[in-house]
């Protein structure tokens, strides 16, 4: 019997592995993301969380395994089908990735022009409405990205990602580089979006404030190079409230921001490199 559409996850990563050259970044990741879920992917820098997020969005082709979006393997779709499927995605980039050559209005209107035929008036109404939803005044519409602050650019990026009312919104480090107040503004905007319509969200972050406040599920990844043989790269998968009591010490350390034995590891690595250099010089 075919599974009920409601039971089917929106995104299903099945045994996904990604390698760049000789370097393994992700190994055998299984991850189901249900409709309406807000998932935070956390982990230290270099653990592969951004690669996982880009693989989910179809920007990186997995070396092995498959990424199924609403029943379709993203990497088996034709370019035209993939472009059409991407209409259902919204992506908020770490540094907003606004087009420098376009003003804010054209940036936010870009997805509409790519996917729909709408009159100029209709586009104007929708763009202004979306800018207002993210708390930006209409005056910014005529400005260029370089004329805005980091927080404003992030909000424009959010408006652009939401303009087509996507089913899946992916946020890459939405609060990185912002002051605490602006970080909370972004968190509130993510929550407001979820309240406004039933969106599924994936947030890549190492800001625990964001993970705790916004997500209803947290997945923690660990760098491949530092795993023990046979260990899963996903160290934690559960609600944010369980983070502090996680069985794995590395999860608790990350959540509390404790260096722990990492400082010793780094010192040992530095000493090994210095030793190798000294050996080379002696030769």
């Amino acid at each position, binding site marked *: 019997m075919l599974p009920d559409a409601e039971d089917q996850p929106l995104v299903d990563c099945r045994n996904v592995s990604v390698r760049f050259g000789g370097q393994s970044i992700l190994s055998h990741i299984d991850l189901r993301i249900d409709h309406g879920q807000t998932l935070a992917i956390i982990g230290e820098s270099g653990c592969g969380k951004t690669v996982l997020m880009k693989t989910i969005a179809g*920007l990186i082709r997995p070396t092995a395994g498959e990424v199924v979006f609403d029943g379709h393997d993203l990497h088996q779709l034709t370019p035209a089908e993939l*472009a059409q499927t*991407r209409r259902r995605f919204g992506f908020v*980039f770490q540094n907003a990735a606004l087009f420098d050559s376009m003003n804010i209005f054209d940036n936010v209107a870009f997805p509409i022009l790519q996917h729909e035929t709408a009159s100029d008036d209709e586009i104007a109404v929708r763009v202004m409405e979306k800018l207002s939803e993210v708390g930006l005044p209409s005056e910014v519409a005529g400005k260029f990205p370089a004329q805005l602050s980091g927080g404003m650019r992030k909000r424009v990026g959010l408006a652009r990602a939401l303009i087509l009312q996507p089913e899946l919104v992916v946020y890459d480090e939405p609060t990185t580089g912002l002051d605490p107040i602006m970080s909370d503004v972004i968190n509130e905007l993510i929550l407001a979006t979820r309240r406004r319509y039933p969106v599924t969200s994936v947030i890549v972050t190492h800001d625990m404030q964001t993970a705790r406040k916004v997500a209803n599920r947290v997945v923690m990844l660990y760098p491949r190079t530092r795993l023990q043989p046979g260990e899963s790269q996903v160290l934690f998968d559960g609600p944010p409230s369980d983070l502090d009591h996680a069985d794995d010490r590395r999860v608790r350390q990350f959540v509390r921001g404790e260096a722990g034995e990492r400082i010793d590891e780094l010192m040992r690595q530095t000493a090994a490199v210095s030793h190798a250099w000294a050996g080379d010089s002696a030769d």
Partner: protein
Amino acid sequence: MAGVTYRDDLPAGEARPSKLSHWVTDWGGIVIDGVSTVGDIAIFAYRMFAWMFTRRPARGTILNNFYQVGVLSLPVVALTGTFIGMVLAVQSHRQFQMIGLENRLGAVINSSLVRELGPVLAATMLAGRVGGAIAAVLGTMRVTEQIEALTIMGADPIHYLVVPRFLACILLIPALTIMADFMGIVGGYFYSVIVLGIDHAAYLQNSSDHVSGFDLFSGLLKSFFFGGIIAVVSCYRGFNCQAGAEGVGQAATAAFVMSFVLILGIDLILNILLDAFYYTIWAPE
């Protein structure tokens, strides 16, 4: 390509890699990298042509690129052409005077300009001005994830960014070559006739006797190829830009150097082919 790492802890009896094997490995790596880059550029160009004949680019992107490549390059190309014409007059005058052929100056200046110097110098200027700018802009877009943003919003970056630039280069670089030729002819005439005092009628007569329509055709045909090379190489370098300001700088430099070398290489091949074609069709009896 990383060099071979010599190890001191090799098991007894195992031969240490010789300098020859080190040399072979390094050169082998360079050859493999070169072949791989040529393959990548071919795939990139194939995807561009596939898009070019599938869907017309947006009017806004075409006009903007035509303006950037054509209109903004016009002054520098015109100025370069004028100086080249005058320099040719200065350089050739003394030699031609020594053998009493200074009235033939128009023939040598104008035929060199139209066949060779106009197209090659215009292309060189544009490889620096346009090619460097294309690589830097696309490289910055790559580094700041704007190219990924285009993809995620359903716009193919090759269709949106590369096709309009390619069209601008292959259509406007020949037009700019005509401008460089024209200004070179004017500059050469000015220096020869006004400054050096060569007879006006003889200069023009010799020019018209020795510069044929085929010379003009061969110069313009070459400029189409040069335009294509500049666009494909610069866009490819921009798309494959490494992270950071240094990556963008390297992409711009590599785009210019690679375009320049390819322009000269293709120039040689086209000259051989055009010469063979000319003498096959209009072979002297």
